[in-house]
């Protein structure tokens, strides 16, 4: 493998990772506040759909290079709305969080396709749009390998990397982060100190909708250019795995997301090697999922999960 290919591999890795990073960061907000979010998949679907539709209409309106950003804004809005369903059910009405997350996945799968058919005269997918263009950072993109690999990426990739750092800061250095984590660890401790547990959890879940929405948007706006039933196929679940690998820490989740992105990207490159021909392609496709299980077996388990994760908060219970 020469250096150019290596640069391309790195670049493709980041393309695949970006959506996972956003969604995993979203998952962290929700789960750090104590709400299991298995609905990331559905929230990404909402985001991908909204970005495709919003991007399409913005492009038609002649917004040019701004059109994909309109798509991102739409994805954020629709992601938040979708996550509100989860929040209302699991926080206000104390529904089982896993079930209400599953509901999100169902509703997203049904409603996005329903709306695509509604908006585009029964078509199975949204019209193709231009999406984002890669942006070369001056000077830096001239560095060998890394220049090609990192500094010649989609704007969303830069945004994702910046957000990892911002969210780390927010979680561990600010009052908001301290309160959010306290609510996920010991809600009644936070409550008796005047921290509004329900509000913090609503914020956590809504931020997860917002970020998973952007995550979904990056897939339509950088990879597929359109939204169809298979645009998001399991990415949300992999984002959950990335979050758990990363021990609910933005930096860890970033690392895990890049790892998953890499194992998806490698599929396209491994075929450059002669020896890979002898391995059935199905086994290459399996790699990320088998690796996930292996890593889980050898590492974390559930020990570093927020303590109150999955428990509805009931102030009457002591």
């Amino acid at each position: 493998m020469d250096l150019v290919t290596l640069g391309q591999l790195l670049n493709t890795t980041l393309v695949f990772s970006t959506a996972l990073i956003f969604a995993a960061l979203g998952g962290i907000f929700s789960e750090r506040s104590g709400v299991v979010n298995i609905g990331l998949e559905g929230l990404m679907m909402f985001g991908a759909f909204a970005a495709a539709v919003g991007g399409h209409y913005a492009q038609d309106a002649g917004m040019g290079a701004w059109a994909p950003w309109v798509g991102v804004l739409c994805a954020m809005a629709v992601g938040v709305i979708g996550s509100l369903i989860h929040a209302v059910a699991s926080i206000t009405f104390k529904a089982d969080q896993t079930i209400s997350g599953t509901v999100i996945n169902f509703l997203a799968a049904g409603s996005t396709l329903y709306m695509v058919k509604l908006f585009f005269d029964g078509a199975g997918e949204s019209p193709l749009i231009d999406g984002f263009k890669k942006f070369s950072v001056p000077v830096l993109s001239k560095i060998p390998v890394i220049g090609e690999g990192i500094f010649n990426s989609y704007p969303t990739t830069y945004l994702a990397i910046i957000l990892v750092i911002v969210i780390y800061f927010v979680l561990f250095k600010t009052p908001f982060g301290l309160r959010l984590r306290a609510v996920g660890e010991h809600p009644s401790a936070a409550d008796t100190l005047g921290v509004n547990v329900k509000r913090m959890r609503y914020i956590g879940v809504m931020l997860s909708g917002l970020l998973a929405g952007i995550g979904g948007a990056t897939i339509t706006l950088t990879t597929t250019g359109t939204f169809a039933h298979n645009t998001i196929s399991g990415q949300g679940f992999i984002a959950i795995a990335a979050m758990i690998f990363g021990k609910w820490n933005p930096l860890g989740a970033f690392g895990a997301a890049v790892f998953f992105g890499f194992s998806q990207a490698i599929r396209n490159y491994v075929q450059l090697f002669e020896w890979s021909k002898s391995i059935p392609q199905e086994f290459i496709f399996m790699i990320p999922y088998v690796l996930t299980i292996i890593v889980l077996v050898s590492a974390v388990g559930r020990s570093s999960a927020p303590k109150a994760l999955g428990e509805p908060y009931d102030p009457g219970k002591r």
Partner: protein
Amino acid sequence: MSAAAPVVELKQITKRFPGIVANDSISLTLKKGEIHALLGENGAGKSTLMNIVFGLYQPDEGSIEIDGKPVIIDSPNKAIELGIGMVHQHFKLVEPFTVTENIVLGMEPKKGLKIDYKSAAEQVRKLSEQYGLQVDPNARIHDISVGMQQRVEIMKTLYRGADILIFDEPTAVLTPQEITELMAIMKRLVAEGKSIILITHKLKEIMQISDRVTIIRRGKVIDTVETSGTNPNELAEKMVGRGVTFKVDKQVPHVGDSVLKLTNVNSKSKDGVPVLNGLSFEVKAGEILGIAGVDGNGQSELIQAITGLRKIDSGSIKVSGQEIANLSPRKISELNVSHIPEDRHKHGLVLDFTVSENMVLETYYMSPYNQGGFLKMDVIDRHAEDLIKQFDVRTPSIETKARSLSGGNQQKAIIAREIDKNPILLIAAQPTRGLDVGAIEFVQKQLIAQRDQGKAVLLISFELDEIMNVSDRIAVIYEGQIVGEVFPQDTNDQELGLMMAGSLKRGGNAGA
């Protein structure tokens, strides 16, 4: 003093829950600089009342005045604003956070967008010095002792400028020495102008530290008296509603052969920390051995080792001469070892099973309950009917879910099940925790009855009074070791306390 308005005045507070009046027209005044004890049994309505003062519940009727002004306390935030702080019985501390983080949570000093941890730690240090609390601001909660954790709880209220402090059963988890220190802290707080409500059911503490006592029973105020003008017997009678004997009636024990014998038992936690550390003792037929100790010194691990729930690394555990170390819980149970677990909700019952189903939790697979893999529901039901009659378990029916029974009746159900196995060894861990006086009497009588029938009884309790009253012999556990073995008649609280704190060793194998 008397001219000023009381700092807190509760006027005819009534709070109803479905099916029960938790507080029935309760009135109470707290004067400035006073330590006012609130005495009552479990379930008398103390906690409900204090949760109303702290804004967690809203009263259905009645009003609250602070410094003579009527107020409505609709949230903990409002309570904090009014200068009310609560030191909870079950500490409300975020374990992975530092002391400082726990204290400033919700009122963090800021520098730009960031929390200003430097000035926060500085404030915590100052408070700690002012009240002589000796708390390290940067320690993590899971690394500090229970007594220290309680001081963090106190500092949380002081940091918020509380003038009225509510202590909810603050001594339940402390050693006698730590209790003495807590009393000193409370006196210092009062000297600095704070006022304190002390919720407790321990008469000794009330006599020691309080200025006045309000006794409530079944949600009603029975009386408010000056502490100097009363005595423990009078208080107890008012609390329970009838005369109470503190001494448990029991005959001289007829001690027989060794039933349970532990020799040099060692076990480590997951992180490699020794939790049982060369532990040895013996329980004989016909005696009750009480294990005294502060929570977290290896009591739970000890029980787990005997019942097969924890692997031991070395040493021997024998029941009637047979080695049982590292056998499965079922094998040990089949050797006629019964176990009343310390956490009845978590370990003793399947709350969503019916009473009937719970009664065969350990025996369902045996004849006559199981025939060829199928359960004989009629036999199981009849068995349950017998037991609830025999042990007076109050339940609407045997088909009722265990969840909807009262704490006392849940415990009775467990005791019925365990005693019905006709054990040679009965392990009772915290068997009276959270029960009212009637149920406590019942449980203790059952333990003594078992011992009188020649069973060996191992009693583990954090309540020194219980250990002193019920046991025939006492072993003190400290950091996974037995540090003393004494007879209740020739020791006292002070001596036990010193042993529980690890600063005195006496008798048994302690010297070896």
